[in-house]
């Protein structure tokens, strides 16, 4: 369980946000809403211990996050707003690299099913650089499945997706929650996804 307590972040003497508290229990979905530049990405980065908060603290499983960092990193998947797949390589190569690098326990049939649901199964031999933006975004979600971790930290996961894919994401989020996973994601629109906590920044 992740707990954020009275978190404030200042950068270059400018307050980005202050006194943010939230908790993320297993099976919960938290949405961070706010305008552009309101600090959604900064908060997500602070949760990942990439930005030093000015005040406040973050706890993971009852211990300070900093003292329990590697256990947290073993349980978290982060998807940023950039495409992390390697553009020079084919889709199959990318999947292969992820599977090995994350020492994934997902088997090939599960990946095939995921590829089919994401409608990416025809592009396996194509280089990622030739795919459209929406398709590379969907490829990022495949990483969620491959990494198979409990806590998902997602930055703007729903931008640039078509209606079918958003529907698919809803389903994926619900399935993950049923498996006692937890999700925190940022979004500036109201996607109609069932959430347990809504946080306005």
């Amino acid at each position: 369980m992740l707990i954020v307590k009275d978190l404030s972040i200042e950068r270059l003497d400018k307050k980005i946000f202050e006194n943010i508290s939230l908790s993320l229990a297993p099976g919960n979905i938290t949405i961070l809403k706010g305008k552009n530049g309101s600090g959604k990405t900064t908060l997500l980065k602070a949760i990942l211990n990439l930005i030093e908060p000015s005040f406040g603290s973050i706890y993971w499983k009852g211990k300070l996050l900093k003292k329990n960092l590697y256990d947290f990193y073993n349980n978290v998947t982060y998807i940023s707003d950039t495409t992390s797949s390697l553009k020079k390589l084919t889709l199959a190569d990318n999947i292969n690299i992820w599977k090995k690098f994350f020492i994934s326990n997902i088997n090939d049939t599960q990946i095939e099913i995921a590829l089919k649901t994401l409608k990416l199964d025809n592009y396996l031999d194509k280089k990622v650089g030739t795919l459209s933006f929406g398709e590379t975004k969907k490829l990022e979600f495949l990483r969620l499945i491959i990494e198979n971790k409990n806590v998902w930290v997602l930055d703007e996961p729903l931008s640039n997706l078509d209606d079918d894919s958003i529907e698919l994401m809803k389903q994926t989020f619900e399935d993950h929650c049923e498996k006692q996973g937890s999700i925190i994601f940022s979004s500036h629109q109201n996607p109609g996804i069932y959430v347990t906590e809504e946080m306005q920044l």
Partner: protein
Amino acid sequence: MKFLKKIIFFYYREYKLNMSGVQDILTNIVFFFLSVFIFIFSIGPDKETISTVGVAIVWTLLLLSSTLSLRKFYQDDFENGNLLIIHLNGFSFGFITILKTFSHFLFVQVPFLLSIPIACILLNIPNDKLLYLFTSFGIGSLTLSCLGSISSSMNLMNQRNFLLGSVIVMIFSVPIIIFSVGIINMAQNFNSLINILFGILLIVFAINPWASGLCLKLSIENN
């Protein structure tokens, strides 16, 4: 055990990436050989002069060619967020820089190491100096990779002045050049000079993870 596996598959990833961009490595080698040719043509047909300055030319060009690829050291992985993913997979920033430095040594410097004998034939460098050239470049190139890692990580957020990174490497590589060429030209002092060169490598190798790791952390924090 799991950590060891992750390291192995990190290199598998680097191998795949470098093989997909194998033309970049080849371009570096071609640049190296073309520069050697230009030197030969500009010096003229005097065999004696060429063999006297040959070692210095090889070393200078090796340095220049290896700084060409510096920009790619961390930039791609930083821009597409892979550096962050690797960090979240359990590698500290300092450790990433060590892994990356060895990867740069393997995929950029070793091809140069293999092309040295051919350059020696072109520049009429005697065969007995080849061993010294290999040893000095073997140690010197790893030092250059460490320096490259530091300068490249410092320049991650620098979007305008791309040459700055190469300038930093060149300033710090002056002592490496002095002692490396010294090894080849004064073979009787081989042991003492190689100790100094090795000493420089150890200093830079110790500073590298600390300095580059901090730069990577700051760049990701401010990106």
